């Protein structure tokens, strides 16, 4: 029997790894992967709660978050490719024509 809290703590750990990835990484694609980790952590928490309440509406939410994540991935990678075409780099430190 695995208590709900364990799932939530796992989700919290994955979320934190995602957040630290976004903050410390200087590679755009890694930043983007870390954001996916954050969304997955949120999904895991949602499904754990849905299990707890025996209520499938949490599942609907996860289903929709996945669609949103796919849409975000498409737009994000398009932006990265447009950038790469102009600048030939995916290192975040190279993107400071403005101050940040």
């Amino acid at each position, binding site marked *: 029997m695995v208590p709900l809290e364990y799932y939530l703590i796992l989700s919290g750990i994955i979320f934190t790894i995602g957040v630290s990835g976004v903050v410390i990484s200087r590679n755009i694609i890694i930043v*983007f992967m870390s954001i996916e980790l954050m969304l997955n952590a949120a999904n895991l928490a949602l499904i754990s*709660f849905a299990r707890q309440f025996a209520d499938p*509406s949490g599942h609907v939410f996860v289903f929709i978050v996945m669609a949103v994540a796919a849409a*975000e991935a498409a*737009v994000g990678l398009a932006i990265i490719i447009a950038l790469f075409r102009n600048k030939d780099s995916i290192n975040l430190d190279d993107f400071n024509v403005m101050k940040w």
Partner: protein
Amino acid sequence: MQESVKTILENFSLNIDLVTLMPEIIICGMALLTMILEPFLKGDSRKVVMHLTWLSIVAALISIYSIWTSQPNLQSLQFADAYRIDSYSLLFKAVFLIGSLLTVFISSNFLKFKNVPDGEFYSLILFATFGMMNMASAGDLIVLFIGLEIMSLCLYVLAGILRRSVYANEASLKYFLMGAFASGFLMFGIAFIYGATGTTSIVDVIQSSEILSNTYLIIGAAMVMIGLGFKVGAVPFHMWIPDVYTGSITNVTAFMSAGPKAAAFAAFFQVFIVALRPLQSEIEVVLWILSALTMTLGNILAITQNDVKRMLAYSSISHAGYVLIALVAFTPAATTAGLYYLLCYTVMNIGAFTVLIMVEARENSDTNFSSFAGMGRRYPFLGILLTIFMISLAGFPPTAGFMGKFLVFKSAIDTGSTSLIVLVVLAVVNSLVSVYYYLRVVVVMFMVEPELEYRPINFATGIIAALVISMGGTLLLGIYPQIFAFFLNTALI
């Protein structure tokens, strides 16, 4: 099995009222139609897309007005309580639509000047508006999240629509990374709010009996606060705003600073004032700090800017701080005042951006303060208009900016709480400081001689329409708030 499906359908009503959904249907339908029409139009007939876009926005505004007059105290829950249409959300939608309308007017010539593909542009503006409308009417956190994502995805693309410009690329990238990061926080928060209450509905106040775990609710509220804080650009989640606003093409910056900001506030109002009332005292403290930081830091940083566009970006941060006062006050009057302020800000800010676009849309021009030199002498009328917009942004009578600030501050003082009075005093001091950087533009415009020969400004029809609407709005909202009495009688709670 078929039997059961039949009974489900019979016992279940989505309660859809197409009349009240008309604004959304018009906007979404036109966004689709634009994409279908666009490939068939060549040359001059491409203007059709632009005209259809603004006509559809006007049609949506008219339909909001007719819903408003025919059903004054509308309270309708549709799609199994996932969508709420009431007078408050209708007014929010009107604010978004006015922002989009002005954006379309200022865009048509500027896009040609900057050589941007226009069909997709209008379609994305309409999709973003549709997303904002979903946010304002969301009765469920799922709808709120999707609306926010539709709006954000369109904005990421609009920010980078000037594909060959490195600045636009960078703006788009930063906006995307920060926006997706914020969405991660928002989702994690929503998951915990769901865990704390067992529901994602935000139609009613969450009753304390429903709260299964206060800890989860607080974690959830904190995460949602971070997520939405990024979207409204509250300090310390503001760092993307200056770069994204400066790097994007100017008409998109005008759009971003108006509607999407108001939409993020709509989400703020719904989640924190309606749904999370049980946490009121904690939320007030956090919002107080956010509000004080946001207006002060936004103002201080705005003083040091040499680029008008970047200055307006910082000014938009500090204005978000003023609106947050309405959230701290937590009263019905304050929600109304916050909405009124957002309307005023939309009108006057896009007005200021319109003049900025006129200055930028000349040969070899940019958005620095020096580009404004001599404009006041060459075009005194335009100079006076810009002066009025700047006075309004600084918050002086007889303009919209003053009336908006006055209502927000009054609602805060009426609560009688000392901490709010301190916040209002801080806001007044900040407004006085802001005079410096707003009037700097005016000084440069009238007093400084241009270094080179003055290059003429091109007056296009769309730009003039936008100027007339935003100037009319700025003056009317400031001088005759009585005619907006219907507005002032509408409260969220």
